[in-house]
């Protein structure tokens, strides 16, 4: 009975000195950002650099095939495709032993449609009865457009958040929030680059990053909200202390919310099948990073820039005001 509900057991108010450690963590973050940038950009090959380009952005064809109940002979499939004159053929297992994924580029000038048919026929000849459960073909024109749209979407999202925070809070808050967003997005790119064997950079990844942007902002806004309130209440308190107090006050909420999101996403990664795995891992990582950055990036940037503090009359703390 003493351990339930847990909320009664958790410390009522923590007094961590977050700001005091900000120096070290920001240094760490800057190093991580630089490393992520290098990882995701090097070797600068267009369009995706160091990331594993999905066909959404690179163009090409992906076939998902099943030979159930027989297991797929990946080696034979690879051999079959090597002599076909198609660009960069790749065969890998996918999900279960009886499934495989085949990727290739349509040679320049060839008809994508005819190439797919040719590859499918060759696979059936070599592997016996094959069912093609998924076929994705993306032409060079469309892949270029999707890539442009994806990057534009990310840029627009960050801009929209900056403007919204500026409008609802003040410019300094907006800059802090955007610094945190860049941090989250770049680190997520770094993570995708690091695990490029398992996670592809495609439209779904962009959607995941957009969700991370939304979530990270959500977290930042909640901390900022309390921060703004405390700024008005405690007009004389040093800025760093106000930040510490605000983060500590929201800490229980931050942890609970992040944990629920993590629980749901772990379920998604475990039971959502291979096509949702990448998406859920990106989201998991992003949510962890987003929580961290609300505390260690967004707030310290505000500390760096300072804020306008004499806007309105302070609230009187001792006598609680009635609710709106």
């Amino acid at each position, binding site marked *: 009975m003493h351990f339930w509900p847990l909320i009664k057991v958790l410390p009522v108010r923590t007094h961590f000195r977050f700001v005091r450690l900000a120096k070290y963590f920001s240094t760490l973050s800057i190093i991580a950002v630089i490393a992520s940038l290098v990882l995701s950009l090097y070797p600068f090959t267009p369009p995706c650099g160091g990331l594993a380009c999905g066909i959404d952005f690179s163009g090409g064809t992906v076939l998902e095939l099943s030979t159930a109940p027989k297991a797929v002979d990946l080696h034979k499939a690879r051999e079959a495709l090597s002599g076909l004159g198609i660009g960069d053929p790749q065969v890998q297992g996918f999900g279960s032993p009886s499934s495989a994924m085949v990727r290739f580029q349509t040679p320049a000038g060839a008809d994508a449609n005819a190439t797919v048919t040719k590859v499918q026929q060759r696979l059936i000849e070599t592997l016996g009865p094959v069912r093609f*459960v998924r*076929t994705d073909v993306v032409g060079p024109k469309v892949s270029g457009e999707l890539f442009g749209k994806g990057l534009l979407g990310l840029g627009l999202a960050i801009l929209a958040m900056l403007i919204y925070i500026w409008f609802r809070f003040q410019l300094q808050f907006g800059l802090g929030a955007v610094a945190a967003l860049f941090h989250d997005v770049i680190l997520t790119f770094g993570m995708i680059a690091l695990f490029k064997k398992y996670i592809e950079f495609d439209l779904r990844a962009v959607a995941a990053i957009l969700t991370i942007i939304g979530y990270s902002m959500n977290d930042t806004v909640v901390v900022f909200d309390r921060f703004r309130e405390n700024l008005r209440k405690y007009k004389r308190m040093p800025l760093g202390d106000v930040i510490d107090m605000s983060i500590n006050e929201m800490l229980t909420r931050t942890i609970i919310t992040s944990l629920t999101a993590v629980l749901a996403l772990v379920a998604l990664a475990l039971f959502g099948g291979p096509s949702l795995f990448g998406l859920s891992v990106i989201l998991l990582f992003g949510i962890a990073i987003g929580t961290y950055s609300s505390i260690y990036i967004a707030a310290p940037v505000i500390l760096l820039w300072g804020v306008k503090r004499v806007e309105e009359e302070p609230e009187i703390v001792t006598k609680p005001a009635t609710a709106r």
Partner: protein
Amino acid sequence: MMTLARWKVILVLLATILGLLFTLPNLLPAKVRDSLPPFMPKKTLNLGLDLQGGSYLLYSVDTVALKTEKLNNMTEDVRNTFRDKQIAFTDLVNVGGAISVRITDPNQIDDALNNLRRSVGGQLAGVPGGREVAISQAPDQRIRIVFIPEAFDAAAAKAVEQNIEVIRRRIDQMGTKEPDIARQGKDRIVIQAAGESDPNRLKSVIGQTAKLTFQMVDDAATPEDMAAGRVPPGDEIVGSSDGYSTQYLVKKRAPITGEMLTNASAGFDQNTGRPIVQFRMNGIGARRFADITRQNIGKRFAIILDKKVISAPVIEGVIPGGSGQIRGNFTQESANELVVLLNAGALPAPMKVEEQRTVGAELGADAVQAGATSSIVGLLATMVFMLLIYGGLFGGISLVALAVNALMIVGVMSFTQATLTLPGIAGLILTLAVAVDANVLIYERMRDELRAGRNLISSMDAGFARAWGTIFDANMTHIFSAAIMFSLGSGPVKGFAWTLFFGVLTTVFSAVLVTQVLLAWWFRAARPKTLPIA
């Protein structure tokens, strides 16, 4: 808490009932659903192609090829005009998207210009007396003809429309489950067919230009001539799939074309039992066919589809009525396909596949299964977690809010028929998990207010009032993300955006209003002195 507005209670009850009502069809087997009384909603979730299986095809109409063809025709018009009017010219070329010609006699230039302005290029729609082309004098006694960009755009737009018409006719004849055919942008066509089991067949029916011609075979040339590329003037070499020869030498002139066919049907050869295609021609076609067959008994003619001979029969006698049959190297399926193509007509402009996404029904069913499992596990985990943290009462209240939220999302998605995709399911799980954030914010605020020395009632009130601003700001950020995902355009990602968008709306509603109503009821019933979470 003491003053619970009646409209709030009514709104919450109404939302719950409507949510339940619109979610219900998804839970019932199809039979029960059909037997529901007419006032009950029957729409289920609109599953995306990645969940129910199907094909998404994006074609672009080749406007460059269309322009080349139009300019080629126009070049012939220029030649004919000058011949008719006896204007001497040299160096008539069609390069760089323009026609250029040199008039030999400088005195005839004005005459030439006047004649061209009357005869070359069609009428410009919407401009009386305007023409599709701009004709101007260039240095060195030259005349230059270019397309007016607007005129060409209009022509291209018309070709795209006509292509869509032809595709629709073709697909209608195939009997595929109502596909969705839509124009996208200036020169693109999107086709979405749910449940089509054989995307290759769909593609081959849609993508073929299906230009049919009857041309005489020139038997004068030997195979050696053909191999050496010695082609007599007026002839051309055409590949073949008729099963007898790999290529034929045929006359370039095509007296009979696909437009002259009025009807085609599939049948079987009475002697061999092999599939054949029967056709009928219109008046002009029938007359020409009769003439040709009369003049060329014993010779062969080639039936050519998209620059490929499908049959090259020997003419055995006069065929007067304009009906005949094609005994090609057909399977029953390919015969049926040809019938569809012939009846629907040729595409006015060639197209190519820019993007294709096909998911088999089997994979779709797997995805639905995986989505459902992970949703249930994720939700249960969230629920247990909330109960652990906030206890039976407050945790329980957040669970009820969560349940109402889930009902509303599924209800709204069913009602609006917004597409649910696999990433959309991920969006749904995440939305529901993060939805408890609003509850957490409210509860934590209540605890803060209590700690700040307020009494119970005003802490609860302040908890709602003050958390509201935070909840609103925090959820607006998700709306922005969702709006930008819409602009990305891809189907599955759009599905993700839909669930995120509706999820935010229902979350704000259920977490704030439902929680408030439930807490107020509890407060009235129990008259508590302390908060169970403080």
